[in-house]
C-alpha cells in the first residue's frame, strides 16, 4: 500500500548548483508592496527551464 504521495517539486539543493542568475522578478515590484514573500516568483533561468 502506498502511504506517501510525493509531489513533483523543484529540488532546492540541486538549484544551489545552477541557481542565482538573478533574472526573476523582484518580489515586491508588483502587487504586494507591503509584505515580502518569494514563493510566488517564477524562475526565469532559461538553462533551468530547458
Amino acid at each position: 500500500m502506498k502511504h506517501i504521495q510525493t509531489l513533483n517539486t523543484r529540488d532546492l539543493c540541486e538549484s544551489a548548483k545552477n541557481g542565482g542568475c538573478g533574472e526573476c522578478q523582484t518580489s515586491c515590484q508588483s502587487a504586494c508592496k507591503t509584505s515580502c514573500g518569494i514563493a510566488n516568483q517564477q524562475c526565469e533561468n532559461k538553462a533551468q527551464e530547458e
Partner: protein
Amino acid sequence: MIHQYKLGGLPIVLDACSGSVHIVDDIAYDMIALYEEKSREEIIAAMLEKYGGREDVNAEELAECYDQITELKNAGKLFTPDTFAPMAGKLKQKTAGVVKALCLHVAHTCNLNCSYCFASQGKYHGERAIMSFEVGKQALDFLIAHSGTRHNLEVDFFGGEPLMNFDVVKRLVAYARSIEKEHDKRFRFTLTTNGVLIDDDVIDFANRECSNVVLSLDGRKEIHDRFRVDYAGNGSWEKIVPKFQKLVAARGGKNYYMRGTFTHANPDFLKDIQVMLDLGFNELSMEPVVCAADDPSALTEEDKAVVMEQYEKLAELMIRRRREGRPFTFYHYMIDLKGGPCIYKRISGCGSGTEYMAVTPWGDLYPCHQFVGEEKFKLGNVWDGVDNTAVRDEFAACNVYARPECKDCWAKLYCSGGCAANAYHATGSVRGVYAYGCDLFRKRMECAIMAEAVRMMEDDK
C-alpha cells in the same frame, strides 16, 4: 527540518530544505512525526497500538510504510539537513553592485486622502512633489549603468498617485524603449494606481506598455469608502470600479492585480474578495495593513484568529471555483512548486537596498519604497550613485540566515526572512522580524501549498 500539518482534509508533510511536498496518510503522518526520535521497532509498535484495529494494518504493512519514509530520506526528500547557511552570504554576493529594479516615485502627491496610507497620502512625511522627466531619465540611465549582465529590468511607477504625473510616465517609457535594444535590456513596467484618473489614454498605455498593473480596491463599498476618500471626504468606490472594469476588460489576458488592504475594520476580508469576484475581477491580492501598532486601523491579536480562518476559507473557495471552471488567482497563493525560485532567491529575499531601490521625485535613492522619508536610510542619488555604503552593506548582509529568529522556522525558504521595512518598523532593526506578519505568512503558505497540492493531484488524474 520538516513541517507537518493537516488542512483541507489533507495530511501534508513539507521538507523545508529540499522543497519536497508529501501528501501522506494518517499512519505515515504519525510515523514521520516519530521518525527522528524513536527506533524502527518502537515506531512500528506504536503504530500497531494506535491503528491495529484496522483491517488493513499489520506489522508487515507498517514496516513497508517505515521503509518508504527511509527511502525518501535517503533520496534527499525528507529530513534533509540544512546545508545552506555557509553559502548564504556568498549567494547574496552575486547581487553585489547590481541594480535591476527601481520603484519610481513619480508623484509624491495623491488625489485621494486615505487615512491608512503608509505613504501619508503620498507625501511620505515630506513635501508634495512630482518627478521631472530629467530626474526620471537619469534614474533609467542609472538603472542601465548598474544592471551588469541582467537582461530583465523592472520599473514600477508608484506614488502617491503616479497618474498625476502621467505625461512624464509616458515620456519615460518612450525613452526606455528607445534605448533598451542598444543595451540588450528588456524593461518591464508596472503601474500602481488608485484608478481615479484612468481614462482611455491610460488604458491604452497600460495595456500596451505595462506587464502588470496594480489597481487599488478594498472590496465592499462601505469598506473601501471608509478609508479611500477624496479630500472632500467622498468615497471613491463608485467612481473607480467602472474604470477598473473597463481597463481589465481591455487588458486582453495581460496580468493585473486587484489589490486591496484589510485592516481592523475588515479582518473578515473574504467578503471583500467575494465582491471583487462578483465585479468580474479574478486576479486578486489582499494585504494586511501596514501601520503603527497604536493606529486604529492596525490589526489586533483578536483579529488574527479571524484572518487565519479567512485564509483557510479563501483556499477552499479557490479550489471550489477552479473545479467549477471559474478559477481566480490570489497573489500570496500563487506558488509554483516545480518551477519556483531557486535557493539563491529564497535566501536573498526581496533585494531591497541592493538590486531593488526606490527613487524619490528629486532623485534620491532609498532601499525601497517603504523607507522613503526615513532620512537615515537614504542611499545616495541617481546622479552620483550610492554613497551611503553603511546602509547598503547592511541590506546586502540581510538574508534569511542573518536573522536568528528564522533559524528554526520551516517557512524561511518561502519568505526569505520577510520584509525589511516591516521588521524595522516592528523592531527598530532591518534584521529583526515582524512576528505578527510571520504568523500570517506561515498560514498563507500552508494554505497555498495545500491548494496547489490539490490542483496538482487533480490535474494528474
